[in-house]
C-alpha cells in the first residue's frame, strides 16, 4: 500500500473535519435534529458527501463547494423561517393538536396518520395515565408529543401553598 496515499487520506480527513466544524458553528444550534425532521435530513446530507472527499474520489475544492452550497441553502432557509411571512409554515409545518380537553382529536390524528394506540403510547411516555389530565397535547414539528395538563392535574407547586393574606 502506498504510504503517501494513506497520508493524503489522513490529511483530507483533517481538512474535512475542520471545514465541518466551521460549517456547524456558523449554522448554529438549530442545525442538527432537534427542531424539525428536515434539520436531521440536512445533517445526514452533510455527513453523506464526505466519503468521496476523504478518499479522494472528488477533489477537495469540489467537495467543499457541495458542502458549502447545502450549508448556505440551510442558512437561508433558517432565516426565512425565522422571519416567517408564511415560510415558517412552508419549511417547518405546524404542530397538530391530538388531544383537547381530555378527548382525542380525530382529524388531527388522521392528518398525521397516527392511530389511537400510538397517540396513547406517546402520552404515556409523557407520564399521562388518564386522558382527562390533558388540556392540550400537540404533535410538534420535531415529531414529539408535548403535553399541557389541566390545572387540577398539574403537580403541586410552592405557590399553591402560599398563606392567604
Amino acid at each position, binding site marked *: *500500500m502506498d504510504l503517501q*496515499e*494513506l*497520508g493524503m*487520506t*489522513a*490529511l*483530507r*480527513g*483533517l481538512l*474535512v*473535519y*475542520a471545514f*465541518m*466544524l466551521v460549517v*456547524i*458553528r456558523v449554522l*448554529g*444550534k*438549530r*442545525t*442538527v*435534529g*432537534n*427542531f424539525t425532521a428536515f434539520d436531521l435530513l440536512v*445533517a*445526514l446530507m*452533510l*455527513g*453523506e458527501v*464526505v*466519503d468521496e472527499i*476523504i*478518499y479522494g474520489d472528488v477533489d477537495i475544492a469540489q467537495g467543499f463547494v457541495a458542502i458549502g452550497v447545502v450549508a448556505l441553502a440551510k442558512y437561508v432557509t*433558517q*432565516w426565512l*423561517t*425565522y*422571519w*416567517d411571512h408564511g415560510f*415558517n409554515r412552508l419549511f417547518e409545518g405546524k*404542530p397538530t393538536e391530538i388531544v383537547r380537553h381530555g378527548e382525542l382529536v380525530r382529524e388531527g390524528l388522521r392528518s398525521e396518520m397516527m392511530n389511537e394506540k400510538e397517540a396513547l403510547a406517546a402520552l404515556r411516555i409523557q407520564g399521562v395515565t388518564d386522558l382527562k389530565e390533558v388540556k392540550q397535547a*400537540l404533535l*410538534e*414539528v*420535531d415529531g*414529539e408529543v*408535548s*403535553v*399541557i*395538563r389541566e390545572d387540577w392535574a398539574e*403537580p*403541586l*407547586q*410552592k*405557590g*399553591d*401553598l*402560599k*398563606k392567604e393574606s
Partner: protein
Amino acid sequence: MDLGRIAVRALVAYIYLLVTTRASGKRVIQQATPFDFLVALILGDLIDDCIWAEVSVAKFGAAVTSIVACDLVVKFAAMHSQLVYRIVNGQSRVVMKDGVEEGNALRHEQLNEGDLAHLLRHHGIDDWKQVRTALLEEHAELSVVRTHEAQAATKEDLPRVKELVP
C-alpha cells in the same frame, strides 16, 4: 467480489469503528453537541466504500483514524481551555428572563417566538410567567428554571401542608 470477502470487510470495518468510537469517549448522541452528531455521521459514511472494496481497508483505517484523532485533539483542547471550548461548542444563551423572551438572544439562535413556545411546551409550560430563566444549552436543548412559586412542592413545604390539612 465474492460474498465471503464482503462479510469479512464488513466485520473488520465494524470492529475498527467500535474500537475507535470507544476510544473517543462515552458521550451518547443525546448529550452530544450538534457537531458530535455530525462526526458520528461522517464516520458512518466512511464505512460503505470499505465494505464494497472501493477503497482499501488501510485507506479506510487512515480516514477513520484521522477523523477520530482530530476529534480527540479538539475535545482535549476544549477541556483545558475555556476559549477553545467556546469556539468549538458555542455557549449556552439565556433566551428568556422573568417570563419575557430575550429577542436578541433568540435572533442569534435563529429561533422565533413560535419556536420558543414549542420548546417550552416540551417542558409542559404554556404560561410563560412560570419561567424565571430559560437557556438554550450547547447541545441545543432548552433548560428551564421556574419561578419559586411555580416550582414543584417538596418536603420542605410539609409543615405548611400540615397547617392546611389539620
